[in-house]
């Protein structure tokens, strides 16, 4: 993943960059599988590696294929800034509990109840589904509305323009 990330930064050809981001998502999905988060890995592989790559390619088809060269003199401050941010993030992770620690705060709150009770209350073998669709159904409803709104936004900005242009073309053809 590190090699892919560096390649994404260095390469100027945007087509290769988009393909490499897809590869990056696929590697991230593999890591999620190693951490036993199969549902998340599924989503990452389908959305990150699949659909978003295609959407980026679609955007490239509308714009140019090559990245414009940026100002070189900004490289040093940018490097310092990213090193500081990275150091702070790593410092922040020092306080985090170890991976798989049973005493971590996240395993103390509602997770035991979901794991113990969902078989009796909901009766589904996949606890992820019962948490997403039943215990947290308000959140999932909100997510569905977010996706709906996103598609509406795309339609409002670029979806309807085409039809209007078509109409104009028809009108122009009618005039000529």
């Amino acid at each position, binding site marked *: 993943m590190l090699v892919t990330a560096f390649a994404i930064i260095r390469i100027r050809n945007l*087509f290769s960059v988009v393909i490499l981001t897809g590869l990056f998502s696929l590697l991230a999905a593999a890591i999620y599988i190693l951490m036993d988060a*199969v*549902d998340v*890995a*599924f*989503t990452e592989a*389908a*959305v990150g590696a*699949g*659909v978003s790559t*295609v*959407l980026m*390619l*679609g*955007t*490239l*088809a*509308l714009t140019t*294929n090559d990245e414009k060269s940026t100002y070189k003199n900004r490289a040093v401050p940018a490097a310092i800034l990213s090193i500081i941010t990275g150091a702070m993030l790593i410092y922040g992770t020092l306080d985090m509990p170890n991976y798989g620690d049973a005493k971590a705060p996240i395993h103390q709150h509602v997770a035991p109840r979901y794991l113990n009770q969902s078989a009796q*209350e*909901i*009766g*589904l*073998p*996949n606890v*992820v*589904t*019962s948490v*997403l*669709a*039943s215990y947290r*159904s*308000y959140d*999932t*409803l909100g*997510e*569905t*509305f977010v*996706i*709906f709104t*996103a*598609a*509406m936004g*795309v*339609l409002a900005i*670029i*979806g309807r*323009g*085409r039809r209007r*242009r078509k109409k104009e*073309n028809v009108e122009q053809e009618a005039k000529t």
Partner: protein
Amino acid sequence: MKRAEMRIMQHKVVLRVVSKFLIPFILLFGLYVQWHGDFGPGGGFQAGVIFAAAFILYALIFGVDKTRQAVPAWITRCGLAVGVFIYAGVGVATLFLGENFLNYNALAHDPIHGQHLGILLVELGVGVTVCCAMITIFIAFAGRGRK
């Protein structure tokens, strides 16, 4: 991918044959993920994306216009709203049956059956909306830039 390349792609025989062979299986896998999400990994969101990926593959190989013939604009636009409507409708239905909003226990006599039915319907709503949203967004992007 430039538009000219896209047009060339419509003449690639291997791609056409292989994608024609693959698309039914992608659709079938999407349906499997949709209805089997209760028991294995997956659910409405993933299923919607996979289902939409089949149409996006078709659009990449055969062009946007042929895809629009298969899935007209009004279907995806209605589907967007229908998915959200199914989800919120389940919530309102439970409200009328005397329970809290989106508490599926009220949907059947047995609370567990109610939960199963509610989750199935809600996942269907998510799947329909996600699938239509992905197709809409892709076609809005890919259909642009053409006169």
